[in-house]
């Protein structure tokens, strides 16, 4: 079932078009990554979905209802967290969550606060002042707030950007659990491509305000045909570089390492060729293209 639908959404700020006629939809329980370089239009798109910025044209429907006419009813079932927002520094963690529990009209707010504090392993900070929290704990508090109302849709803007790997992993596990247990629909932006690959069913890639690709993380990775062959050289670095250049491959060298980018089917040709020239190496790694490679290629190409 489709819970969120964006149709021909455009946002212009004067002559600058931040979001240019984009359309997409998200199904119930789906985790979708919204990716793109800085200035691609992701934050403006999310802000329009929250009613903080009004669209120049196009429409947003949530649960089949037009957002513009049903803002309060829709937002009651949504929530939002961003690495860039903070919390009132004179309130305690518990007080901050209590205010938002009231704002979202959460039934039995005190019990729910204890529940989210437990889920995010944050109970010991309940009496801490927000102003005394580390950036990692502030991100954790934002996530507690984002799930306080058991939302059906959550928009997460770089939710793990300031968390240590352990907590970031806990958050990812919770996001997965939330989807499995409550069928929560999640739209997430992140610059951590491994995280997107781990979490997302689908990725929407934006650049210059437009959606330029929409696929699974694996599907996007496959659009990059180049495989990276990294060799830690023992003998024959110059011969390897010369062979690669003659074959028309992209080659870079640094210290003892030579990296050659080839199509997957040319890996065998490369290795056989340098073996024929008597090249020896201590280590070899053959890396298939990742979402990160796709991101870098798209971001650089369109600039």
């Amino acid at each position, binding site marked *: 079932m489709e819970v969120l639908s964006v149709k021909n959404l455009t946002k212009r700020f004067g002559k600058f078009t*931040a979001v240019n006629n984009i359309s997409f939809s998200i199904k119930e329980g789906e985790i979708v990554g919204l990716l793109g370089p800085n200035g691609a239009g992701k934050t403006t798109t999310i802000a329009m979905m929250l*009613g*903080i910025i*009004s669209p120049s044209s196009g429409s947003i429907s949530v649960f089949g209802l037009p957002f513009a006419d049903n803002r309060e009813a829709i937002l009651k079932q949504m929530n939002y967290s*961003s690495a860039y*927002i903070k919390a009132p520094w004179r309130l305690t963690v518990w007080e901050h969550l209590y205010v938002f529990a009231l704002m979202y009209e959460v039934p039995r707010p005190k019990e729910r606060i204890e529940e989210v504090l437990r889920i995010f392993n944050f109970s010991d900070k309940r009496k801490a002042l927000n102003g005394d929290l580390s950036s990692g704990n502030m991100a954790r508090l934002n996530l507690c707030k984002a799930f306080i109302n058991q939302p059906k849709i959550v928009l997460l803007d770089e939710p793990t950007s300031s968390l240590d790997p352990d907590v970031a992993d806990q958050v990812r596990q919770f996001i997965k659990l939330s989807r499995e247990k409550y069928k929560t629909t999640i739209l997430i932006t992140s610059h951590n491509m491994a995280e997107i690959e781990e979490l997302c069913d689908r990725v929407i890639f934006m650049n210059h305000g437009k959606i330029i690709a929409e696929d699974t993380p694996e599907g996007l990775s496959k659009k990059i045909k180049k495989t990276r062959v990294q060799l830690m050289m023992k003998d024959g670095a110059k011969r390897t570089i010369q062979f690669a250049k003659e074959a028309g491959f992209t080659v870079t060298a640094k210290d003892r390492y030579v990296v050659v980018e080839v199509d997957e089917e040319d890996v065998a040709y490369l290795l056989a060729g340098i073996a024929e020239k008597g090249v020896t190496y201590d280590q070899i790694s053959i890396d298939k293209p990742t979402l990160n490679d796709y991101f870098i290629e798209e971001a650089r190409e369109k600039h």
Partner: protein
Amino acid sequence: MIISLRRRVRNINFHRVWAVMMRHLMSWPRSLERLADSFWWPTFNLLIWGLVTTYLQQQAGQYQFFISLFLGGVIMWVFVYRAQEEIGVLLLQEAWDRNLLSMFSSPLTIWEFTVAAFLLSVIKLVISVIWMIALGYVLFQFNLFRYGFVLVPYAALLLVSGGIMGMIINSLIIRFGYRIQVFAWTLIAILQPFSGVFYPISSLPVWMQQVAIFLPTSYVFEGMRTVLKEGRIDYPGLIISVALSVLYFIFAVWFFAWSFKKARDSGALMKFS
């Protein structure tokens, strides 16, 4: 516009209004600067003006109403500037705390936020004014309510005037951002000389008197002096003040709604994150 206003009032959810009030009431005792706004500056004003007028009274016995008029003015002006400041600074407080996006990405409406700000300003104002009245009585034997509670409607009108100014300043802040945040403390001062807080409007230059005609606050302070001197309410002045307040209130609501719409169009709210 009236129908739209009625619809907005009907749609106000008091759970969310209470949530905003709770957020600020819980942080209030921990905020030294906000406590200073509530107690320190009003006390300081009262002491300075009380001592000046006591001195003047000792020097020239014929000015027997000086204390009443000055202290009445000091206490009544608190209604205007505290109401205005409370509403203006409340919005800025959310922006400084980088909490504004969390607030307005929730179901909270700007009208619920404004109602909460107004109710908070009433609560804090009542506390400030009780403190000042008690202090005025203990230090200078000045009793603002010696004629009963006839000054209450005037105080209510001043509160509304402060609220109107607060909404206009919030509208400007929403529209133009931090660069004009200083208005939250300073803009109200423009009203004071024209309002005749400490002197009758007739003592102003003619051009200032012409401006004062359009200010609801000028009728209130004239009315306050009538109450303190003659113990009666100046009903024509009160009615003009009410009419002007209603007019400006409608304008402020419209301007606030327009500014918020413009801020959503221009993405100005995102700049507070």
